[in-house]
C-alpha cells in the first residue's frame, strides 16, 4: 500500500513513529498520525488543521491530557516540592541513564526503540486513506487522504481531539477535500 503514498504521506508515517517515540508511547495511534499531519508545515492537511486551530502544540497537549504523559510529570511533582530532576540525577547515578523510564511488563528496556507497531485503528486509517483516494479518483495517496481517513475512522484519539475542540469533522473534511481537488 505504501508504494502509492506521496512523499508527504510517507513522511507522515515516519513522523508519527518519531512522535510516538518522543512521547514514549509503545504504539503508533491515530493521535500520532494527526500530530504528524499537523507538523508538516505547508502541506494541505497541516494548513487545514491549523485553520481549525489544530496546531501541533494543541494536539500534543490534548494527547498528553488523555493518555497522560508517559514520562513523569515534573511540573505536578514540583507542586509537592519534589524536584524530579534531582530525583532523576540521584537514581541515574546509581542505576544508569534512563533508570527512571517506564518499563513495560515483561521487558527490561523502557523506551520503545526501533519498530513501533501501529494500533489496529491507525492501520485502519491508512487503509481508509487508500479508499478516500480511490473515491476521489486520485492515483496516489497524499497527506490529505490520510486526514480524510482519520476523520472517517471517527473513533480514535485523533477523532476525540477534533471533537473535544468543538470542531465539526464534516467542516474539516470539506476543507481538506476542496484542497485535494482544487
Amino acid at each position, binding site marked *: 500500500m505504501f508504494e502509492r503514498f506521496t512523499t508527504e504521506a510517507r513522511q507522515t508515517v515516519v513522523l508519527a513513529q518519531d512522535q510516538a517515540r518522543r512521547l514514549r508511547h509503545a504504539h503508533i495511534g491515530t493521535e500520532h498520525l494527526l500530530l504528524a499531519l499537523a507538523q508538516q508545515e505547508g502541506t494541505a492537511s497541516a494548513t487545514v488543521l491549523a485553520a481549525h486551530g489544530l496546531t501541533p502544540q494543541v494536539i500534543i497537549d490534548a494527547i498528553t491530557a488523555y493518555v*497522560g504523559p508517559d514520562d*513523569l*510529570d*515534573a*511540573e*505536578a*511533582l*514540583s*507542586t*509537592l*516540592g*519534589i*524536584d*524530579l*530532576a534531582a*530525583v532523576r540525577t540521584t*537514581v541515574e547515578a546509581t*542505576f544508569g541513564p534512563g*533508570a*527512571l*523510564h*517506564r*518499563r513495560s*511488563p*515483561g521487558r*527490561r528496556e523502557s523506551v520503545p526503540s526501533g519498530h513501533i507497531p501501529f494500533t489496529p485503528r491507525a492501520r485502519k486509517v491508512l487503509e481508509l486513506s487508500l479508499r478516500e483516494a480511490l473515491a476521489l479518483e486520485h492515483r496516489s495517496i497524499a497527506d490529505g487522504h490520510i486526514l480524510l481517513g482519520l476523520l472517517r475512522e471517527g473513533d480514535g484519539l485523533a477523532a476525540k481531539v477534533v471533537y473535544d475542540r468543538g470542531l465539526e469533522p464534516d467542516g474539516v473534511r470539506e476543507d481538506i477535500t476542496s484542497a485535494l481537488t482544487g
Partner: protein
Amino acid sequence: MADTVQVAAEASSRDPSVGLRAVRALRDLVERLEALQVDNARDQGWTWEQIAQQLGVTRQAVHKKYAGGRGLLRRKD
C-alpha cells in the same frame, strides 16, 4: 523548581485539577522507583518474600505484580 512560597500555595490548592494531577505524578514516580528497586533486589538474589517484607505487602502481591513474563528473573523461590 518553584520557590517555596509558590510550592506551598500550589500543594494546598483547592483546585482538584492541580491536586489530583500532583497525586498522579507522585504515584507514577513511586511506581517507577518500586519497579527499579524490585528489579535490583531480584538481581541481587533477594526472594519475593524478602522484597514483600520490605515493601509491606504480601509475597503474592509483589510476585503477581513483577514476576510475570520476566524470563531472566523467573526462578523458583
